[in-house]
């Protein structure tokens, strides 16, 4: 509804006000005449009419309205395209990545500003200022409310997918605080991924991202024990993984892998799905996972991907091959998983003193309480 109204007003603040007014009208009218057959459509129509009235007023006040809009179109279901327009507006590359995420939560998902602030562990005033600045830039720089042109779509879609991915990973392992998972973020991210997939059925990376999130979602419940302790893949109860979600992800991956070289999200989803399909860690198809990591490293040459590839390599060729691959990495000294991965390889090689030093290094970098507890136990076990 907000998306449909924004298209008329071309102004986010005005649209939010108009939507509020529509709700007020609904409360008065519905109390008197009863709830209409299609309350959503009723509200959208009223909001749109209010927006048009507002614009007509503004037009008589100003001799020339700078953001004059197209003639109002016939009433049709405005939703899918408008939501997509709103997503692409919020994820426009002229906005900073944090502004993109905040705006998407606020305007596409309707999360209240204090809750957005809470999710990102910043003061409410900071988040409010960030959102206001971004909205101002949309209005004053005239960032269009439009689905990008065909030639711009891949790059723009990638920004939108990154925002959803970031949203999910922020919720999946909270960067700090006491809970490992922030359900409100993972749920929003999954909704958005489903929406992008539904709105852009031909975009294979949108399918890949949805599949990736579905596999993570299928395993989410088993990532911690009853006391909130982090469980490794090997310790998780595979019987409790959600087979329906994994099956849904598989179907998406098979479709996305069928043509042309797959992109980053499709490959990540394929790796996650292989883990999810294995009856146990030992029976995981590590050689196939290593092949997928090699492909992923080609389309997304990142040190973090290389670190994950080293874990697969250790399973295929042994911990010394994994350790050599990890020690060849550069620029990850501040990354806690580098140290915990090294620690694991070193322990498997019987180099316990070095393993303990590496666990201690990882512990010093971890800020999430569940992760800290996990690493502390590993360190104590080794001693």
């Amino acid at each position, binding site marked *: 509804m907000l998306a449909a109204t924004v298209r008329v007003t071309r102004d986010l603040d005005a649209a939010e006000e108009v939507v509020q007014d529509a709700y007020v009208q609904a409360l008065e009218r519905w109390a008197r005449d009863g709830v209409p057959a299609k309350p959503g459509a009723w509200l959208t129509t009223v909001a749109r009419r209010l927006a048009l009235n507002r614009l007509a007023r503004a037009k008589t006040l100003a001799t020339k309205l*700078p953001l004059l809009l197209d003639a109002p179109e016939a009433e049709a279901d405005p939703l899918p395209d408008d939501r997509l327009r709103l997503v692409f507006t919020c994820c426009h590359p002229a906005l900073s990545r944090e502004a993109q995420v905040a705006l998407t939560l606020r305007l596409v998902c309707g999360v209240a500003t204090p809750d957005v602030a809470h999710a990102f562990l910043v003061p409410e005033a900071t988040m409010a200022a960030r959102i206001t600045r971004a909205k101002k830039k949309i209005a004053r720089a005239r960032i269009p409310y439009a689905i990008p042109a065909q030639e711009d779509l891949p790059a723009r879609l990638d920004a939108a997918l990154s925002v959803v991915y970031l949203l999910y990973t922020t919720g999946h392992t909270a960067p700090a605080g006491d809970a490992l998972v922030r359900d409100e973020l993972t749920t929003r991210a999954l909704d958005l991924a489903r929406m992008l997939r539904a709105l852009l059925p031909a975009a294979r990376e949108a399918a890949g991202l949805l599949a990736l999130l579905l596999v993570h979602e299928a395993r989410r419940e088993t990532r911690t024990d009853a006391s909130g302790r982090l469980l490794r893949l090997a310790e998780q109860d595979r019987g409790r993984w959600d087979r329906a979600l994994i099956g849904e992800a598989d179907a998406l991956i098979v479709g996305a892998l069928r043509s042309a070289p797959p992109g980053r999200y499709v490959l990540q989803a394929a790796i996650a799905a292989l883990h999810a399909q294995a009856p146990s860690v030992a029976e995981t198809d590590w050689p196939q996972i290593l092949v997928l990591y090699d492909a992923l490293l080609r389309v997304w040459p990142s040190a973090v991907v290389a670190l994950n590839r080293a874990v697969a390599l250790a399973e295929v060729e042994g911990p010394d091959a994994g350790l050599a691959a990890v020690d060849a990495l550069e620029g990850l000294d501040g990354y806690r998983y580098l140290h915990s991965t090294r620690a694991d390889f070193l322990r498997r090689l019987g180099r316990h003193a070095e393993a303990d030093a590496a666990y201690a290094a990882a512990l010093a970098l971890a800020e999430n309480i569940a992760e800290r507890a996990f690493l502390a136990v590993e360190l104590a076990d080794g001693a």
Partner: protein
Amino acid sequence: MAQYAVFMFERVPPEELPAEVMQAHMDMPEKVTALGGRIVAGMAFEDVGTTTAIRGDELTDGPFLETKEVLGGLFIIEARDLDHALALAKLTPIVEGGVEVRPLLDFQVL
């Protein structure tokens, strides 16, 4: 249509621009028009050393910048929205550096 300033940041002073870059500057208005925009004005700055700075009542001989890139000139363009402005600004020939696009307030409307 809305107006945008396109700032050109360059390491190379205008008088040392390669011939093909100069030619690209000459060709730019036509290309912009073909894409549905318009160049309102375009100008290059003299060397950064020619700047005189005013701060309060004090006059000094320049900003003493040791930056790698300096503002070399600007275009004022008309475009439908930011995406259109960015597409037009991408036509700007630059030797080494880049451009920045900034919306302009239209005081006639205010």
